[in-house]
């Protein structure tokens, strides 16, 4: 029912005379481009939730950490691809440290405490960023291969779009493989069901949780680097809205389900672009679209598109 409501927006717009096929396709391409970015970031969000039942609000801010890490390394003349790899490693370490410092001590506390701690960490990183990096937006260097435009059948778009979609698909497949085909993945899935039972099965809970955070943070780092390539400017608060919107994408797809997160990300990106293309006067409220979707999903299909009802962990 929730989906039916969303799609009727398109039907109204298609009757509009401005909406030629070419215009529609260009907007679709832009929507897919934005959606793939949301999808990439939402995967990490949803994976951490799926394993630990924790909404890591600092996920969006890890994007910023990764983007600044790349920025400063490139400024220090490190080649961009080495900078990108190092930034992913640095962000993974930051993610693991956050878990150790702010979430692990609260593991046996009510879940709301961990959630509040996550919000605290998020604010801490943002404000630390403001103090250390200053609030001024900075221009980001973009390697040439990401800086081309590609024309296909009358549609022109950035070459970066294809790299982002490619990265999203590869990371999704790798993650699905990791979770379903490896021993570590099995351990992660066991943790998702019960920490206590898992530890009785000789699973090192702390190690697996750290590993989960390392993977989730690396995904955030990938998202942050891609984001900074697509919108070549960074500022300390750059992760706030992407973080919130990718959370919406994750909920839309069914939180905890990585494939769902990708679908949710694409839907969100396409809806956002299409809504503005069809109703230009609503452009000022683009962020509101994401949250209206969130409210509707929570009201009508709280488990999301791909999500299944999970029994509460005790």
């Amino acid at each position, binding site marked *: 029912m929730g989906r039916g409501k969303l799609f009727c927006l398109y039907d109204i717009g298609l009757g509009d005379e401005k909406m030629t096929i070419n215009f529609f396709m260009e907007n679709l391409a832009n929507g897919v481009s934005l959606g793939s970015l949301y999808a990439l970031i939402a995967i990490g969000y949803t994976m951490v939730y799926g394993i630990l039942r924790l909404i890591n609000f600092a996920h969006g801010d890890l994007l910023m950490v990764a983007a600044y890490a790349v920025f400063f390394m490139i400024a220090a003349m490190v080649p961009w691809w080495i900078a990108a790899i190092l930034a992913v490693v640095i962000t993974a370490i930051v993610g693991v440290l956050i878990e150790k410092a702010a979430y692990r001590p609260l593991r046996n506390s009510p879940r709301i405490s961990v959630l509040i701690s996550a919000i605290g960490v998020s604010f801490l990183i943002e404000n630390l960023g403001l103090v250390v990096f200053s609030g001024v937006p900075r221009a980001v260097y973009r390697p040439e291969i990401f800086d081309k435009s590609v024309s296909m059948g009358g549609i022109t778009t950035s070459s970066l779009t294809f790299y982002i979609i490619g990265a999203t698909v590869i990371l999704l497949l790798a993650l699905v493989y990791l979770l379903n085909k490896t021993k570590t993945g099995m351990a992660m899935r066991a943790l998702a069901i019960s920490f206590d039972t898992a530890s009785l099965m000789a699973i090192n809970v702390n190690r697996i949780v750290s590993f989960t955070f390392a993977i989730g943070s690396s995904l955030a780092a990938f998202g942050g680097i891609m984001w900074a390539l697509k919108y070549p400017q960074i500022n300390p608060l750059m992760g706030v809205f992407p973080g919130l919107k990718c959370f919406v994408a994750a909920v839309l797809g069914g939180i905890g389900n990585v494939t769902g997160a990708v679908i949710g990300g694409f839907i969100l990106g396409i809806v956002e672009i299409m809504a503005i293309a069809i109703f230009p006067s609503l452009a000022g409220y683009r962020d509101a679209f994401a949250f209206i979707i969130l409210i509707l999903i929570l*009201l009508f299909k709280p488990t999301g598109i791909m999500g299944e009802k999970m029994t509460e962990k005790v």
Partner: protein
Amino acid sequence: MKKLMVLFVVMAMVLPMALTGCGGTTTAPEEAQAPAGNPEGDTIVIGVFEPMTGDAAQGGQLTVEGIELAHELYGEVNGKEIELKVVDNKSDQAEATTAVARLIDKEKANVIVGSYGSSYSMAAGETLKNQGVPAIGCSPTNPLVTKDNDYYFRGCFIDPFQGTVLANYAIDDKNFKKAALLVNKGNAYSVGLANYFKKAFEAKGGEIVAEQQYQKGDQDYTAQLNTIKQANPDVIILPGEYAEMALGVDQARKMGLEVPFFGGDTVDVDKFLDYGDLVEGVTISSHFDPAQPELTDETAKFMEAFEAKYPDRTPGAFHALGYDAYLLAVDAIERAGSADSDKIRDALAETNGFEGATGVITLDENGDATKPAVIREVKDSEFKYVATVQPE
């Protein structure tokens, strides 16, 4: 049925929020009338409120650099030392009001300088008027900043003029007939400048073929640019922050939209040039260019001091405007012969033929400066002087 009811309630909650926008309106807190300033103090306090963090931080920081430079050269007036108190308004309207209230109540400022960004100046205007402390804007160009406010002055031109300058340049010099607007809907400067451009452009026989909007913080303009591309304009006007301009130009080029971009003075910051090839050819109207004719002795003094302090940088419009706003304050205090806020206000209102770094400044009955504008264009990652446009 129950779900429909819930849906209805949600919509009822969400829609008013959407309709009024997220920008939020700010009302100045009602402060009790207290004696302003410290006329008896040993020092004179010049309070500065500028965006040091947030979206407008770059402009604010440049302005403060200019003000500090002026303070180093002119640190004394009427035999008293001048104290400079800088407060961050965080690129936020509510914070701007708080910042000004703090400068008046806590720092006992005799006169206030600021702020970059018309929205923040307008938000603070009411407090200044109620408290009776005069303020000099460095670069807020929206006409409403000084309108109906006897305590607000500025050392820069205003947007009706800036919009006309851009429109005339587009039509007369570039022969552009069709323009598209991409406007930050929640920003007084952006909306104002776009409207004045539109008025002047249409009066000269030009046509606005598309009007698109975005909101503060948006990074993706592809949907708007796609609609603009469909309308096939000769030029796109994007009156926004420099970072927004850079993103807009980049996304337009990536979708094969190769028309020139015009912007206002907010783009005139050196960080904009960091975007390199991306922003090549962007044309802006601004307040100051070292190459423009009709500058003063003060310009030379400013340039020399700037180059001594920042050997690797070139001074921009906001440096010069910050410098001039401070000088206007000092000049008024000197002529008033007193640190009393009302006397300073009266002296400011009489400012006539004052030689500043950006040219000769005379304040009109609204407290606005009548000054020429310059057109600058990004060439080889530098702002190049194109033309000077005289006020009518």
